């Protein structure tokens, strides 16, 4: 049994006029110590998915359907009190902007110690020494001083290290990191990624990283989910997807990376924009932007605009695309041998 199992998760935001379906029928699993990336454009529903796991959705968001099982325990059914014992303790979170994440009017020490005391019966002195230990682990310089400082006295990179230290305080099983490096300078980004990776490996902590940056995800994770308009369109081992993406959207994302561009050639783009989550096109949500929506003969594929594609499973990977399904159906032998 996987450590975390998400099945058919639907998250909706009921509004006065209709509702927004931010996450649609999402299923995935995370093993102990595994590092999973979730990638997609802004508005694809990645962050909503991350926050819905611990039921931290902002009003009026709610989980409309599906299960989130942590160690076999159904999180969507727990009382607030039971859930509180898991939040921060078994499953920790790292937010996007470290400068707005930490409370500006409380010291680093206060915030670290309160986290410990919320879940353990522990003396203040003991909590302080645990906090110091964790700050050293994330390589924060002069940790004693930091405890007495306020968040605004620290740089963004340092703050994010503190947030990582807080995430590690209670030795969690999973850390969910929502765009952990987006708000940071590029030079700091690499350090934070390396640190996260090293600490998760060392302590055997599962990691779910949300990012729109394939570079970050590529270095940090073993498995990858690609989200588009609230759905998972492709998932599989990170390396496989980056080297040989199946879904036309993933291919577009990877071709748009500067590293993939030929010298003196303009960067590849995916034409059009991702639809707003309140007006997702029928059928495959990506079909208006997809270059495979026509058959080689120039006929529009009717499936693409009419039916939501089901996931095609091959080995560790899944792709939700009518074109890929057709491809596999016509070339079964070739696909198996490659």
């Amino acid at each position, binding site marked *: 049994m996987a450590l975390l199992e998400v099945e058919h998760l639907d998250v909706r935001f009921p509004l006065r006029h209709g509702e927004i379906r931010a996450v649609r029928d999402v299923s995935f699993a995370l093993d102990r110590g595994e590092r999973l990336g979730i990638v997609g454009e802004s508005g694809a529903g990645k962050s909503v998915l991350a926050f819905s796991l*611990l039921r*931290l959705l*902002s009003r009026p968001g709610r989980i409309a359907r599906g299960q989130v099982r942590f160690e076999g325990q159904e999180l969507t059914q727990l009382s607030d009190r039971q859930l*509180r*014992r*898991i*939040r*921060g*303790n078994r499953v*920790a*979170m790292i*937010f996007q*902007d470290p400068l*707005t*994440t*930490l*409370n*500006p*009017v*409380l010291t680093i020490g206060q915030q670290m110690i*309160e*986290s410990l005391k*919320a*879940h353990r019966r522990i003396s203040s002195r003991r909590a302080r020494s645990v906090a110091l230990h964790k700050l050293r682990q994330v390589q924060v310089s002069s940790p004693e001083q930091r405890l007495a400082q*306020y968040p*605004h006295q620290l740089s963004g990179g340092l703050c994010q290290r503190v947030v990582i230290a*807080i995430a590690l305080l209670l030795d969690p099983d999973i850390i969910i990191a929502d765009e952990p490096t987006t708000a940071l300078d590029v030079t700091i980004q690499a350090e934070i990624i390396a640190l996260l990776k090293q600490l998760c490996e060392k302590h055997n902590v599962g990691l779910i990283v949300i990012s729109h940056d394939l570079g970050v995800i590529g270095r940090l994770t073993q498995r990858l989910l690609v989200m588009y308009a609230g759905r998972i369109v492709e998932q599989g081992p990170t390396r496989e997807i980056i080297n040989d993406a199946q879904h036309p959207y993933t291919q577009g994302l990877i071709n748009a990376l500067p590293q993939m561009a030929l010298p003196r050639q303009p960067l590849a783009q995916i034409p059009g924009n991702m639809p707003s989550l309140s007006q997702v096109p029928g059928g495959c949500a990506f079909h208006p932007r997809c270059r495979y929506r026509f058959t080689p003969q120039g006929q529009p594929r009717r499936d693409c605009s009419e039916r939501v594609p089901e996931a095609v499973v091959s080995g560790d990977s899944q792709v939700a695309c009518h074109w890929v399904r057709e491809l596999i159906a016509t070339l079964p032998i070739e696909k198996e041998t490659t």
Partner: protein
Amino acid sequence: MILFLMRRLLQAVAVMFVISVVGFAIQDGLGDPVRQMLGPTATDAESTGLRHSLGLDRPLWMQYLHFAGDAVELNFGDSYFFHEPALDVIARYLPATLELVAASAVITLLLSVPMGIFCAIRPRSWLARGLMGLSLLGISVPVFLSAMVLIQLFSIGIQVTLFPTGTGWGQWLNQLLSIQGGMPAYGRGNPVHVWGVWYTNFASWQGLLYLLLPALSLAFVMLPLFVRLIHAEMLEVLESDYVKYAKARGLRPSRIYFLHALKNTLLPVVTLGGVQIGTLVAYTLLTETVFQWPGAGLMFLDAIERADMPLIVAYLMVVGLMFVVTNTLVDLLYRVLNPRITLSGRSA
């Protein structure tokens, strides 16, 4: 820090100067103090003599310079009516006003913080909706009206005779809906003498009873404003990343609301509160009139009627000083609450 205080001192001097000039400039519009002092039967010779001895026959700017010279030595001249130094008169009346202001500030604080927080945490509950509606009403009701209503309800009382008085249940219902009244609504009662120098309403039950209605009516000036402000700030803070992060860390809701959220909510509340202390002092003019509370506000209104110039100007100066002092204290308190602020002599 020292630079900051020095800057504040300079500001205070500037504020005081402007107040004194304004106070002086309006004195011609208030009537003739000599006439007030001598009565209608005075002869021309008498009034000219008094006018000369008071220095009122000199040009206005000379009067002002003379006044300013004395004011620097904290001498605002003798009150025309009381025939004693104006500051002494104010010192006699001010404590009653300050007690009133302090009591209503405490009432405002004790009621508005829990109400505002509750309305933000449970915005859909009926109680919260009711409170928010009432607060809107409260902002619009002038203080003399709320004072009258308080007096009618709790001092005079209401006798309900809606139900038939012949029957037992009718009488019982009438009794149930009636309000006894009987709360004191006139004057200070008999304040207790503490430490030989301080008459106070705080030190005895009877004193507190006399204080209650005036303080409540004065509190109604600020209470709705504060409830709405705390409510709005709290709502905003509850949407912030750090509150969400606190939840994600599994902290108890009470700690999130009353430490993480409240401490951030209080910043603008303290700022407004400081300014409003001064406004409360100003509103005592109305409250003290309705309740005949013998404080500085009532004294000031009398002084205006008597065109008692030294007293008027001295009162304005004292109130102006109180504004400056409370605002400075608020800035100091703000620094304690908000570590991002450091006070310096330079302007931000």
